[in-house]
């Protein structure tokens, strides 16, 4: 069993959703740059690029539900927990720094970017601990 069926499906979903995200983002940026939208339609267009990102979180949830290999499931769960701890730690620290006017304001969606970076960090930590015999 080189790659589980659930992992193949997850990888495929992430690639497709990333492509949809890129298309939605380009369209939304173009529409706003040329002032093509207003009213409720502008809200819909602004939210569109966020939806595939939210769907990726759903894909992770589906992977965890469908993965029959308990060890791989545990590894992904650890990755997600590390990503969450990483994101919330930085968001909390940044929030206090921002509150005291020491750093500029950043958009809330950067939390999601941090979380995906945290997922990568979790994978590195998993591999490092496995190589040291701790996992």
């Amino acid at each position, binding site marked *: 069993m080189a790659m589980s069926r659930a992992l193949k499906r997850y990888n495929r979903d992430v690639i497709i959703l990333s492509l949809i995200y890129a298309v939605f983002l380009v369209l939304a940026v173009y529409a706003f740059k040329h002032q093509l939208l207003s009213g409720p339609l502008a809200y819909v267009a602004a939210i569109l690029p966020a939806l595939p990102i939210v769907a990726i979180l759903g894909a992770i949830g589906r992977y965890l539900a469908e993965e029959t290999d308990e*060890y791989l499931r545990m590894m992904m769960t650890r990755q997600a927990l590390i990503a969450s701890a990483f994101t919330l730690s930085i968001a909390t620290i940044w929030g206090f720094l921002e509150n005291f006017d020491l750093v500029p304001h950043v958009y809330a969606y950067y939390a999601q970017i941090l979380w995906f970076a945290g997922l990568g960090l979790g994978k590195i930590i998993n591999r490092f601990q496995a190589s040291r015999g701790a996992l």
Partner: protein
Amino acid sequence: MKNRLKVLRAERNWSQGDLADRLDVSRQSVNAIETGRYDPSLPLAFKIAELFALSIEQIFTSPSKENDQ
């Protein structure tokens, strides 16, 4: 958890990949269990035991008895 998985596998000339295929898990899982880095769930422990036609205790050493060995 200490276990005899590597010995049992070697007796049958199975690679980690062969055992993984028979258990329907990844090679990483077999490696993690074999090296004691990961303790399998009870259903997977039963699956391993049934594959080798042994009891779970004949493959895995109870943590409370590890110091006795």
